[in-house]
């Protein structure tokens, strides 16, 4: 009998709760009319950023494509005349992308970054395949500072051997002096 009362009470409580909800203001945000401001770290459309000198950050190291769980990133690395390694082509298939952000985490040069912009729908699935031109943006994204070639220690137009941050002058192999 006691349990019956309890059951009835529980039921009544439940019905009362839902009934009360009837008079609350819906929390729905009516998306196409109302655009919510998403946090900067929201994971959506991927971009390739430039370094503070205005050069492409991506060195086509293949780490993002290696870590991508759906294999939606492909690229071909190549070498510029000044010694910079870059992507001769870089392609993200957004029809496959799951916006997990692992590529951003894997990127050693802060080149690939996810942005909050998510309205990328297309009727033709091929238009969801983004090439490097589509991905490149003219800013540094979330990481304003990092410039890989200033610290990498490889020779580019930016710096020669021994001219990077925290480097000694190159060893002169033909001298006896210490």
């Amino acid at each position, binding site marked *: 009998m006691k349990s019956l009362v309890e059951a009835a009470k529980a039921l009544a409580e439940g019905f009362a709760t839902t009934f009360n*909800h009837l008079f609350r203001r819906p929390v*729905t945000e*009516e998306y196409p009319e109302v655009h919510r401001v998403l946090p900067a770290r929201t994971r959506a459309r991927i971009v390739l950023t430039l370094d503070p000198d205005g050069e492409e950050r991506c060195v086509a190291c293949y780490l993002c494509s290696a870590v991508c769980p759906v294999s939606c990133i492909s690229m071909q690395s190549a070498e510029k005349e000044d010694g910079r390694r870059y992507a001769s082509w870089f392609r993200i298939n957004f029809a496959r992308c799951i916006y997990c952000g692992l590529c951003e985490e894997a990127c050693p040069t802060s080149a690939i970054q996810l942005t909050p912009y998510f309205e990328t729908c297309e009727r033709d699935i091929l238009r969801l395949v983004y090439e490097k031109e589509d991905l490149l943006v003219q800013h540094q994204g979330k990481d304003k500072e990092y410039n890989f070639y200033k610290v990498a220690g490889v020779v580019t137009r930016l710096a020669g051997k021994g001219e990077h941050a925290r480097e000694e002058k190159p060893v002169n192999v033909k001298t006896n002096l210490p």
Partner: protein
Amino acid sequence: MIMWFAGLILLIVKLAVVLGFLLFLAAYLVWVERKFLARLQIRYGPNRAGRYGLLQPIADTVKMLTKEDTIPDGADKGLFCLAPAVVAMTAMLMFAVVPFGPELSVFGRKVPLVITDLNIGLLFVFALSSLGVYGVALGGWASNSKYSLLGGIRGAAQMISYELALGLSLVPIVMLARSFSVVDIVQAQERYPFILVQPVAFVIFMISAMAESKRIPFDLPEAENELVAGFHTEYSGIRFGLFFLGEYVHMQVLGALVAVLFLGGWRGPFLPPPVWLFIKIILVVLFMIWTRGTLPRLRYDQLMTLGWKMLIPLALLNIVVTGAVVLF
């Protein structure tokens, strides 16, 4: 002969009005359910098609009509096509015995506001609802899909079980009204609705009715998280629409039965009788939606325990008590 024709025309007119209203209401019940449920969950519900989403039923209908109608490989074609029709048809036929007003006099001719006043009205309803099981069971079996089959079997088992409770819960009403005729039952509630004297029967009937219509918390036949969509997994297009229509007509019919059997039917002050019936139906339906928004789905064993070990004994007890009261 003229009278005969007049009667025929009158019947057709009544049929057309009732059927049209039934279908229209079924379509808008979908909207009502979605809207009401949404508000229960602090959402807006459909609000894209027309103002407040009022054109949503039309959009849904157009969508269902224009969608490709697929029949799975290995399905039993004949039964597959028959099943949704059985569900929709039995649900709609049940409304034939529901009176929606007192007799009217048109040109000196008495017009009963019921499609047909069968002296076995209630039994007719049960007969049809027991046939409705076939739609679910055969649809599930004919789809040649394990989800559908399981859904169909569950549906059949559930409907058989609760039909018993449903029938038994109404025996006291019949005892009180001394008639199977629904019109007579409404007549018998002239002074007070039966809910006042038969609250237990009312509760049993409500629960069983919800189970019969396979609605949450009794929607095991279509339990999405385990059976995809249960017996109608493989259905698409207008065949799926028929299942859908059947469900919502069923809701109305059950609402109407509750109204007629317990709430005094079309009786009520000020407003015309059909409006009162309509209001009562809507109230019952809203209660069902409210329940859907409140209660979680039962487990299969809980479902069976509730039906066989609680509702049926309770209904039998109610019969005995009512019998005793009526006798003495």
